[in-house]
């Protein structure tokens, strides 16, 4: 079972994305590259949030290519955004409800996810009243309760200060080891990649380094 991605598109006047790779759909794949290298574009294309010319095949299922484009709501990826990834008008608990109500039955149990994310005391809070680290843990819990087939994470630690980042990195390493979902982890930080990833792809100027 693999994830096959071939993207080939001009994204700006001077930037073209020409990324092709195939990775096993298991474990944590880090997509490592400097800012502006096109790593978020790859992730957004995989989620179906942006329509970038190319082909994406997940475990033999065509998500994009040959005239097919599966919209994001039918790909069932969990997406953790850079910055706040919660619906701003709903409390943390309501955000989790939102994900659960639209998710098929799956292996991830609400109580366990809340416990592992350490957000039991935050459930009644509005997203605007969470610290950066709290918001990110709640966002990850929200993404997991959607019972995703693939977890996509866009620099989930980059908006945090260094203490919170070190904290969350340890926690994330544990969490990703416990769930049986393939993870794509975008980062510009080598330490994060080394700490979390089972394979690493290097991206630079829109191209995957061999």
């Amino acid at each position: 079972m693999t994830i096959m991605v071939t993207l080939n598109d001009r994204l700006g006047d001077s930037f073209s994305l020409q990324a092709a790779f195939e990775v096993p759909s298991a474990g944590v794949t880090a997509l490592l590259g400097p800012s502006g290298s096109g790593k978020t574009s790859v992730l957004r294309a995989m989620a179906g949030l942006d329509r970038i010319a190319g082909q994406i095949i997940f475990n033999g299922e065509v998500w994009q290519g040959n005239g097919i484009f599966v919209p994001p709501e039918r790909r069932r990826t969990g997406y953790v955004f850079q910055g706040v990834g919660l619906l701003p008008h709903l409390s943390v608990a309501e955000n989790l409800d939102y994900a659960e109500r639209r998710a098929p039955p799956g292996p991830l149990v609400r109580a366990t996810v809340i416990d592992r994310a350490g957000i039991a005391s935050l459930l009644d809070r509005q997203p605007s009243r969470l610290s950066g680290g709290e918001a990110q843990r709640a966002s990850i819990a929200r993404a997991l309760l959607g019972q995703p087939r693939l977890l996509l994470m866009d620099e989930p630690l980059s908006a945090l200060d260094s203490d919170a980042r070190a904290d969350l990195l340890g926690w994330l390493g544990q969490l990703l080891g416990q769930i049986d979902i393939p993870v794509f982890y975008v980062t510009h930080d080598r330490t994060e990649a080394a700490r979390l990833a089972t394979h690493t792809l290097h991206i630079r100027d829109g191209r995957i380094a061999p």
Partner: protein
Amino acid sequence: MGLVLATTAELALVTTLLLILIATPLAWWLARSGAWWKEIVGALTALPLVLPPTVIGFYVLIALGPESPLMAVLQPFGVRTLAFTFTGLVIGSLFYSLPFAIQPLRTAFEAIGDRPLEIAATMGARPLDRFVTVALPLSRRGFFSAAILVFAHTVGEFGVVLMIGGNIPGKTEVLSTRIYQLVESLQFGEAHRIAAMLVGFAFAALLALLLIDRKVGTPRP
């Protein structure tokens, strides 16, 4: 006086309800579409803002008159003309107040940004689901503003009503045209009462608008 007040309130209420229904999808499209020609549509919907109301009234009158192609279509249903009817007045008001529904809704929709809708999409919410459960609650301030503005603006409508209404008591006579009649027949006492009432109403509407803007703040991340 009671009859005129009722006609005015009914016209404003019907116009508000219909216009919210019409303007919501239009404003949503204007806020989110990437089509190059969307600002042409945007400008068209804003036209009533700068056109003399008599011009709007004139065109609507022609369109609702017995000679118009529109009425030819409706002829089999027993409708020969809608000029000088309450329905005609509602149609005129829809055009007249359209920008006052579009602008606040479009601004509110644009302020949502892509992020909340993308979050919902990755959680499995389809487009209509996203609109109802994310866009609507995040833009409710825009809906309050649109409703108040359309209602108040329709109450203040004069030129359009004069052109297509014909000022028929109980059907198409509203407060603004009543004042005009009263002044023409030199009944200043009654004109004063209605004028003062409209000033009070306009002030209350604008005050409500400002208070809602402060109270119903959209939660921001």
